[in-house]
């Protein structure tokens, strides 16, 4: 009796598990559309906007309040509601919005590396045609606009861009009679000389988890993370040039410069914090790190040059970081949302956001104008205009990034746990697994 009951129960459970699938939301609607020349969706009501919460958010809030006022004056009957999200918890909020389209906001700021993953979830509306029809869009820097594209379609307006360059201590360099390095090889030598002369300082503060500090080394050596062939991505992190670059970077995380016991776990923020706290002769930092460095003890005693390439006179290609403004696919106010991001992401407010937050604009003319008046930005603009690179625009990147495959390889090489070949081969095979699914 018990046995029959058991078999029946198991069969029923099995049928239940296999029969009906796990729960799914239905964020699979086609993009909202309308008649040509007519606005798409509601033109009045509440416009919900998500923006990121920054470390010092007050100037951002003041500028956005201005945008809100201007937008509401032009569009009567519209209320713009703003919410500031912490960057760290963003995945939950965005995934939640994709899963529940009825409570989705209309407009959001988001990081360009997240874009491919979001579009795979039908998260954002395709803006290709409408942006092409926007006269200002022709001034957007092409390599920056590329970071808003997935498979040829544009899903956002680049709001600001961030590039990284080499920060160095002018006082330390003067004392030791050093010159800013002209090549990446020289960078390593300079770093070791600083650490040898001043053991309290890291020659250059970099870290095993500082992916966007490491990638320029790969790119400068002529390598890349992955290549796309007929829609299919394959990892190239174990190719010779990529290995040379990663090795060059991992060799900085050694006892003669930045000991692995401290630096193997450093992120970009921690590397910059070490520099800002006066614990390093150099670091790789972004234009967006200026406030953090100025808040530290090295204020007034540092300068910035572009990160050098393999040959003297070349600049190592920087990672084209930055944030986009996009319209949620589930928004019921497509045209209104588009108008809002054209205002907030337009030249006027990019200029204002630069003044408020130091964000580097994405329009060629606005960027040039700012660089002319702000000496600090010059190396970053030089780097940006020398050509930037980006990570693979595929949802697989979310997995690769989250599993820290490349940082793990760097850490393995830096701590001597694995050879460069073994570490990069393992990373490549894991990456290909992610690309394959």
């Amino acid at each position, binding site marked *: 009796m018990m046995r029959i009951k058991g078999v029946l129960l198991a069969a029923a459970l099995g049928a239940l*598990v296999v029969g009906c699938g*796990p729960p*799914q*939301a239905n964020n699979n609607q086609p993009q909202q559309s309308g008649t040509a020349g007519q606005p798409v969706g509601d033109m009045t009501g509440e416009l919900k906007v998500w923006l990121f919460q920054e470390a010092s958010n007050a100037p951002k809030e003041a500028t956005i309040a201005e945008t809100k006022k201007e937008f509401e004056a032009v569009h009567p009957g519209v209320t713009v509601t703003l919410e500031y999200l912490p960057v760290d918890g963003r995945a939950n909020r965005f995934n939640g919005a994709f899963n529940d389209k009825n409570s989705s906001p209309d407009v959001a700021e988001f990081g360009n590396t997240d874009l491919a993953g979001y579009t*795979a979830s039908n998260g954002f509306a395709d803006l290709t045609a409408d942006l092409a029809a926007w006269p200002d869009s022709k001034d957007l820097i092409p390599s920056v606009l590329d970071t808003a594209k997935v498979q040829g379609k544009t899903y956002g307006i680049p709001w600001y861009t961030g590039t990284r360059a080499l920060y160095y201590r002018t006082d330390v360099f003067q004392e030791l009679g050093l010159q800013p390095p002209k090549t990446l090889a020289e960078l390593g030598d300079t770093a070791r000389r600083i650490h040898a002369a001043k053991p309290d300082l890291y020659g250059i503060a970099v870290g095993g988890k500082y992916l966007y500090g490491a990638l320029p080394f790969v790119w400068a050596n002529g390598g890349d993370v992955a290549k796309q062939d007929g829609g299919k991505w394959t990892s190239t992190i174990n190719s010779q040039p990529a290995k040379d670059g990663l090795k060059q970077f991992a060799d900085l995380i050694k006892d003669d410069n930045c000991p692995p016991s401290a630096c193997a776990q450093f992120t970009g923020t921690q590397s910059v914090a070490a520099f800002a706290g006066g614990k390093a002769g150099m670091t790789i930092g972004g234009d967006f790190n200026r406030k953090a460095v100025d808040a530290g003890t090295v204020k007034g005693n540092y300068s910035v040059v572009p990160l050098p390439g393999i040959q003297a006179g070349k600049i190592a290609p920087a990672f084209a970081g930055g944030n986009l403004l996009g319209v949620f696919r589930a928004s019921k106010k497509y045209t209104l949302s588009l108008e809002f991001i054209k205002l907030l992401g337009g030249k006027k407010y990019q200029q204002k956001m630069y003044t408020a937050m130091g964000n580097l604009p994405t329009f060629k003319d606005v960027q040039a104008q700012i660089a002319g008046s702000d000496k600090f930005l010059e190396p970053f603009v030089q780097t940006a205009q020398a050509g930037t690179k980006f990570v693979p625009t595929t949802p697989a990147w979310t997995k690769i990034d989250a599993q820290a495959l490349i940082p793990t390889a760097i850490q*393995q090489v830096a701590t001597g746990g694995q050879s460069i070949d073994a570490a990069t081969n393992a990373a490549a095979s894991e990456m290909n697994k992610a690309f394959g699914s």
Partner: protein
Amino acid sequence: MALPILDPASGSAPVAPEWEIPVPPGPVRKKRDGRAAWIYLLPTGLLLIGLMAYPLYQLVQISLYDYGQPQASGAAPLVFIGFDNYVALFGDSQFWSVLVATVLFAAVCVVGSLLIGTAFAVLASRVRAVPRMLLFLAALGAWATPAMAGSYVWLFLFDRDFGLVNEILGTHGHSWTFGQTSTFALVAAEVIWCSFPFVMVTMYAGIKGIPGEVVEAAQLDGASWRTTATKVILPILKPLIVIATIQSIIWDFKLFTQIYVMTNGGGVAGRNLVLNVYAYQKAFAGEQYGLGSAIGVVITVLLMLITVVYLRAQRRSGWQP
């Protein structure tokens, strides 16, 4: 559900295995008792179905699908892949090394908190009121500290540059959270620190519950201190030890916060991962909910197996729940 946690020595409790009165075999209850029992169990049963059975059912189900964020939001079709997630998991060498690390780490934490907890319980039962109160205050303070706060306090204490420990030992610049063993040892110490009070309080209650006459009788019969401890006190405490051990195994095997916080998500190159953090990294950071669920199922099955095997071993040695 009513376990005789704090009442181990009342009346017929097995003082020593050989004295045990055999339970009469076969059903002695009437049918009507069965119905009443069902009604009494109903509220608990409903809660268990809602909060345990249904989530477990979903966990198993999701683990059989290729289920990522696009599938969750409905942008991509669901694909039933059978046991592919499990095949991928068992084929991943990292999974096995994480599993071994988890088992060893949990074992150290369980043994450590049991030994230290019992030792302090014995100490507490032998000292005067004031030191006992201080001991309890210190232990309960550790117990009451939130895991997150405790982890950070320990990290600050062992900080490479500013930590008190390096200051005292004169090992300035030594990183306690770099080497694999040293990191696991540090986290294990923190875990033992915040979980031994449970064992200590349980054991203390058990020791206090032993009637003085029993110990006295043993001593009158000429039993040495050692014999009294192993032949009289330990058997009486056995139900408590079993419960404390199972609790500790389950807690320490499922450990998340301390590892996640103190090793910054799994240590250098992921060498300080434990299963739960590994599952989190796969499921939520990597948005592979299917694979993450498979890891969840494996953890659940493993814990059930460990518990069953442990209970059976105890039963073989004469203890009945």
